[in-house]
């Protein structure tokens, strides 16, 4: 999984509790992404980062926040988890974004399965 780790790999939590997922990379890539994957919806972008402390919203950002204090770490926080946030969460990295070539290739982590009861 190309030098990307995610923690935890599995988590069960209760509605209303805060949850933080961590993504760590050893590739020194500039761009980092958080996706969720649900049956019938495919991968949907939550937030992405284009540098330390530089982040932007994706397609499904409501209820999520992110932070990137170091190049290698990208955190996803659910401030108050809801059952609709039960999903598999993937972190991805890329050298470039929309540069038009192979450096846009995204490398994915192993995923975190989150269940909100």
């Amino acid at each position: 999984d190309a030098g990307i780790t995610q923690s935890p790999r599995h988590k069960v939590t209760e509605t209303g509790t805060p949850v933080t997922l961590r993504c760590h990379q050893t590739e020194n890539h500039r761009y980092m992404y958080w996706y969720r994957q649900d049956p019938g919806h495919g991968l949907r972008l939550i937030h992405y980062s284009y540098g330390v402390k530089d982040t932007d919203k994706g397609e499904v950002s409501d209820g999520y926040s992110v932070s990137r204090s170091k190049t290698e770490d990208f955190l996803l926080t659910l401030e108050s988890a809801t059952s609709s946030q039960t999903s598999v969460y993937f972190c991805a990295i890329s050298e470039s974004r929309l540069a038009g070539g192979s450096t846009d290739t995204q490398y994915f982590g192993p995923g975190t399965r989150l269940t909100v009861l």
Partner: protein
Amino acid sequence: SQKIEQNSEALNIQEGKTATLTCNYTNYSPAYLQWYRQDPGRGPVFLLLIRENEKEKRKERLKVTFDTTLKQSLFHITASQPADSATYLCATPAGYGQNFVFGPGTRLSVLP
């Protein structure tokens, strides 16, 4: 906004045959399109990229075509093997300055 449709949710094929998967995009004509493979319980893995000015791209037993007139990409696996069984995703930039959009994937099963 850009949407991607993949021809079927699941495709079963006999070992040794050619598997053909379809990816259709609805709006913006992308500069390129990517194909990824995803195994159960794992993240997607990049396979191939094809640019809009390339009609065909090959990598070993894989072949990808890109038809901007039909707004379609075809992904072929020749001489398919049970080890090719996985979900295959296509992805494109969603539009100028926009992020990637992924298709829902096609789950391919190659039967021995």
